């Protein structure tokens, strides 16, 4: 080891960052969204013109993902107000893009981050700005992609242990959001034009 001091310093920095990344976000779960057996499900499909999201993102200096998350928060704010239970913050799990200019074209790298989201903020522009700031801070954490590092070790664990770990990391959130890059042009399946592609992922803390 040529420079043990620098290695130790890096390890300490990573350790502190890992603690920040693993600490649950500073927001209580919504009293309106508590409970649930975790077994039933309802699936909802929703369309938004990409141009609208792009325009909103551009107006507030954020990305399309920031505008998407701001829209999700806006819906939850209305839902809480409808029930007379307004809240300021809500813990949500969000994707953070780790892609850099060094990544190959078409490459895609995301890490999950947990966020005390400004669900009570009525101005969508302000919500996008707050989300942008959080994403920039989260992306700068040395330990943000720690799952990539431990994944090879995780794959050797029994399935039950992996489920337990994954549920423990996600059940502190009321909502889990994700964003998957899609296609900018129409595609065809057996000659028929595909009209939409809808991702329906697992819920936070739920069993597969």
């Amino acid at each position, binding site marked *: 080891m040529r420079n043990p001091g620098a290695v130790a310093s890096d390890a300490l920095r990573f350790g502190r960052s890992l603690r920040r990344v693993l600490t649950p976000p500073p927001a209580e779960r919504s009293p309106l969204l508590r409970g649930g*057996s975790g077994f039933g*499900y*309802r*699936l*909802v*499909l929703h*369309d938004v013109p*990409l141009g609208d999201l792009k325009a909103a993102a551009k107006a507030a200096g954020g990305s399309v993902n920031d505008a998407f998350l701001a829209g999700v928060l806006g819906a939850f704010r209305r839902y809480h107000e409808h029930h007379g239970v307004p809240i300021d913050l809500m813990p949500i799990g969000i994707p953070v893009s780790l892609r850099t200019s060094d990544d190959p074209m078409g490459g895609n790298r995301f890490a999950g981050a947990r966020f005390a989201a400004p669900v009570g903020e009525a101005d969508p522009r302000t919500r996008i700005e707050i989300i942008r700031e959080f994403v920039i801070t989260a992306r700068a954490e040395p330990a943000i992609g720690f799952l990539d590092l431990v994944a090879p070790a995780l794959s050797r664990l029994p399935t039950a242990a992996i489920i337990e770990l994954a549920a423990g990391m996600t059940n502190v959130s009321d909502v889990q959001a*994700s964003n998957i890059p899609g296609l900018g042009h129409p595609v065809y399946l057996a000659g028929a034009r595909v009209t939409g592609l809808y991702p*329906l992922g697992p819920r936070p803390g739920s069993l597969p």
Partner: protein
Amino acid sequence: MIAMISYDGTCCIGLNVDPDVISDLEVFETCLREDSTKYSTCVRRSGRP
């Protein structure tokens, strides 16, 4: 879980909701639509395993 894929100019958003947590999904869907009046379509499917 709320996830989005963009496809041919449309953001396709899929929600997997626990009906015990969001019991009045119709209200939530209205909230989704109202948050952006430009949300154009909303299709619902439901089921239990």
